[in-house]
Each structure stands twice: as C-alpha cells, then as structure tokens.
C-alpha cells in the first residue's frame, strides 16, 4: 500500500516538474523583453507581416488565455505547427528525434553502470592486491575530468586521425557509431558509479552475512558478486538517477559535437532558426524524458531492494 502511495506521489511530482519546466519556457518566451514574433521574423519586419504570425502563435490573445491554451496543448500533445517546416506538427518532429537520444542515453547508462560496478568490485575484492588503490585514483581523476574537455579530443584522435571508430554523426556509422558516442557519455557516469559503489561495498563488507558467506567457503568472486553486490544496489541505482540530468546535458553536447540527429540537435536547431513551437515542444519532451527515466530508476530500485518496498 505504501509502495503504491509513494509511486503516485512520484508520478504527481514528475507531472509537476514537467509543468514547471514547460511554464518556464512559456513565460520566459513571453515575459522577457523582446517580442517573440520579432524574434522569429527579425527587427526589420513590418506590422503587416508580424500580425498574421502573432495570430498563428496565439500571441494576440490575453496572456492567461495563451497559458490555458498552452497547458491544454501540453496534455493533448498538440503544441502547434513548425514554423520552418509548414505542415509538420511540433509533436511529430519531437517524436522522430526522441528515439536517437533515448538510444544514446540508455546505452550510456548500461555501459556506465557496468563499468562502474566492475571497477568497484575489483577495487573492493582481493584480486588486485596493492594495485587496488589505482582504481580509486583513476575513478577520482576521471570524475574530475569534464566530458567537454575529453570527448572532442578522443573523437579527434580515434575517429579523425586513427580512424579506428566511425564518426557517430555519419548516418552509415550504424551501431559502431552509437556505441562510440554512448561510451564517451558513459565514462563520467562510470566514474561516479565506481566511487559510490565502492563506498557502498565497503559498508557492506563489515556486515555479518559476508563473514558467514566466507566461512561457508564461498570464493571471493561469489562473496562479492552474489552476496555483497545486491545489498549495495540501492546506492548504485540512486547515483545513476542523480546523474541523469548531467547525462542529458552531455547528450546535447555530444549531439552537437557529432551533428547527430536527436532531441538536443532539435532544440539547438529550433533555437537558431527561431522555430518557437518546436523549441517549446522539444524542451518539454526532454523534461518529460528526464522524469520518466527518474521514475524508471525508482521502480528499478524498489524491484532490486526489498527494503524500499516496505
């Protein structure tokens, strides 16, 4: 019963986050100095051409009417028509670009979590001996290196110079390109996961059930992977969830770097061409995508760790 109530609270909170995000976009566009219609057509545009555009964007109605219409559009997924590609709805442009970004982010989460957990288990277990310390140092160093400062360099070295990986922006690059882009995005995440999982494993290491497992004669691998790891799943899932926002920002940077189609590219393209309906829809979609991922993380946490469900 409590699990259901928590879930309902989470979903309500998620809806609230999306509505707040959407409202910020809506009001920023209308209340900050500068006429959105002039933003689209430029300063030299005359009244005769501005009036139809204002009408099309609904800017001639009073603000509360515009807001009501916007909220209705939000819930019916109808946020108007693209200004630059007439005949295409903003929602359909968003729908076709969310797939590539979702693939990129999902693969990055999978790779990052796997990398981090492997590094943490190696760092906690007895296999590496004195060299264990290097894992901690590497994780700290990688966590302090911003994606922005290594992704372009690695791309230059591996894709442009050595040509060992395909450029992810190339439509023919296929899975190899996706894998390369996701791996770049996964590296900072992996470092964070490694640090948190290591701390969680050290915490578990002192508990009695691990002593029992060792006393039964379980191998080190069995002790750490079968007994200790599931008990540390909570912090691991939580750190992944807390990094999702940064991951989304990283995805925008990488899409720009590789000129790869996706939600980030759509946001930047509609920003530079002043395609306001698409821009609004894309930002709202990105917000919704983010909270959906957060809820998925909360559900995964509850599925792995029975203590959360109680």
């Amino acid at each position, binding site marked *: 019963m409590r699990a259901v109530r928590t879930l309902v609270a989470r979903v309500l909170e998620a809806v609230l*986050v999306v509505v707040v995000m959407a409202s910020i976009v809506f009001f920023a566009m209308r209340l*900050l100095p500068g006429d959105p219609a002039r933003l689209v057509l430029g300063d030299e545009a005359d009244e005769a051409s501005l009036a139809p555009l204002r009408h099309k964007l609904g800017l001639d109605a009073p603000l509360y009417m515009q807001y009501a219409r916007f909220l209705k559009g939000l819930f019916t997924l109808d946020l108007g028509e693209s200004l630059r590609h007439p005949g295409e709805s903003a929602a359909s442009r968003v729908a076709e670009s969310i797939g590539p970004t979702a693939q990129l982010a999902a693969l990055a989460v999978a790779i990052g979590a796997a990398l981090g957990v492997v590094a943490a288990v190696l760092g906690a277990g007895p296999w590496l001996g004195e060299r264990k310390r290097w894992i901690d140092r590497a994780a700290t160093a990688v966590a302090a290196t*911003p994606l922005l400062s290594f992704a*372009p360099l690695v*791309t*230059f070295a591996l894709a442009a110079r050595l040509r060992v990986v395909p450029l992810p922006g190339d439509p023919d690059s296929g899975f190899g390109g996706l894998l390369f882009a996701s791996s770049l995005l996964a590296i900072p995440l992996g470092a964070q996961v490694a640090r948190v999982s290591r701390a969680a494993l050290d915490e578990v290491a002192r508990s009695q059930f691990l002593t029992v497992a060792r006393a039964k004669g379980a191998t080190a691998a069995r002790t750490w992977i079968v007994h200790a790891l599931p008990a540390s799943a909570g912090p691991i899932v939580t750190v992944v969830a807390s990094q999702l926002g940064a991951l989304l920002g990283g995805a925008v940077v990488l899409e*720009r770097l590789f000129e790869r189609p996706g939600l980030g590219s759509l946001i930047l393209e509609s920003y530079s061409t002043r395609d306001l309906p698409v821009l609004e829809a894309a930002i709202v979609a990105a917000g919704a995508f983010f909270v959906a991922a957060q809820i998925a993380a909360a559900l995964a946490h509850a599925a792995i760790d029975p203590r959360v469900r109680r």
Partner: protein
Amino acid sequence: MRRRILRLVPVTALLAISAAFALASNNPDHLDLTASFAAPSAGSLLGHGEAGVDLAAVVPHAVLRGTALAIVVAVIGFAVGAPLGAFAAISRGRLERFVDRACDLVQSFPSFLLALAVLSAVRSPNRIHLACVFLLTAWAPFARLSLTQARVLRGAAFVEAAQALGATQARVLLSHVLPNVMGPLAVQLGATASAIIVSEAALSFVGLGPRDGVSLGSVLDQGVYSMLLAPHVLVVGSVAVFITSLSLLIAGRAAEGERR
C-alpha cells in the same frame, strides 16, 4: 595546514598567468585574416583560430571572465543556500521538510536543459543572463549541505546552551550554527565554481554562450570545426577547460577539514 594552502596554488597561478597574458596580448576581438588557423609559433604561443584570432589573447580573457562568473555565482549560491539550509534545520517542522524536498527536486533537475529553456527566450545572452540561469539551481547543494550539517549541530550542547540563555534564533544561527557548517560548504564552493566553468563552456559550445564570444566553449567549437585543418585549436580549448575546472575544484578543497 601548509598542504591545504598549497591547494590554492593552481588557481592563483592560472589567474596570474591569464592576467599577465590578457594584459600583454592583443585585444581578443582582434582579427588577422592572414593568420587564420595558423599553428603555434614563437610569435604566438597558442597559435591562431578562426579568422585569425590570437588564441593567446582569447584563452586568457575567456579564463578570467569565466572564472569571475563562476566565483560570483558560487558565492551568491553560498550566501543564499547556507543560511537557508541552517535556518530550516534549526526551525524544524514543515519548513525543514519543504527545504529538504526542494533541494532534492532542484538538485536532480537537468540544469543544462533549464539553461537552454531560459536562454532560448533571449536573443543573444550576456553573462548576467548566464549568471541568473546558473543561480536558479546553484543554491541547492549549499542549502542541502548546510541543512544536513546543521541537523547534527542543533542537538549539540553549545547550541542548546545558547538557546537556554535566551539567544534569539538569528543569533544562534549566525554565531553558533553557521560558523560550524563552513568547512564542507567551502569544498562545495569549489565544486560549484568548477561545474559552472564547464556549463558556461558547454553552453557556448552549443551556441548559447555570452554574446562577446570570448569563452572557452567557442574556442572548442572552432577547434571541432577545424579539427583536421588545425588540431591545435581543439587541444588548446580542451586543455584550458580541464585546467580551469580542475584548479577551482582543488582550490575548494583548501578549506577541507577546517574547523573552528
């Protein structure tokens, strides 16, 4: 103690070198079309970028302006967040729960997305716009840390003693609680400043940076664009982002473990 002070060395050195180069070099807007994408040489240590801008002029200016922005935002975030969190902790009850939850929400918010959302309404953002956008989320980690720290302190004997002696809420907060939560908050100051350097660079990399174009992100953007022609631009931009963010991160840790 000496080791902690050593942690201020990288950022001081970086700023001093940047200031020296910024004073000695050309105006960062100065263009020299004949030197477009010229490689580093004795005359220009870092080489030239797009349309012949001198990187030895642009990078120091960008580092100084970016660091100034980062420090201002981090300090304001600190000045808002630290008292808010500590006050919420000593007043307990509903306010405490509200601030706690608000921090959770804001901290997990995709701040880069929020920046895109707000900046998209501005035709060409300047650094004040950027600072306002960063401040929307920058206060939260400070409030969260100060809340957790003050929760421990509020049960401490010296706080109870002050309250029993009839000290006002404000006095307890200012002279007993806040001074004792400063250590971890100073570390956060460095982490926030470092994150803002990276965010500012990321925003200008994707084309939403400050309108003067003097930013490490636009150097990176030029570098990506001219990757095959002039790789030095990309290397200079990446290394500059890395050094600036890392030296701020290390500087924050100078106050680590400082207790009064």
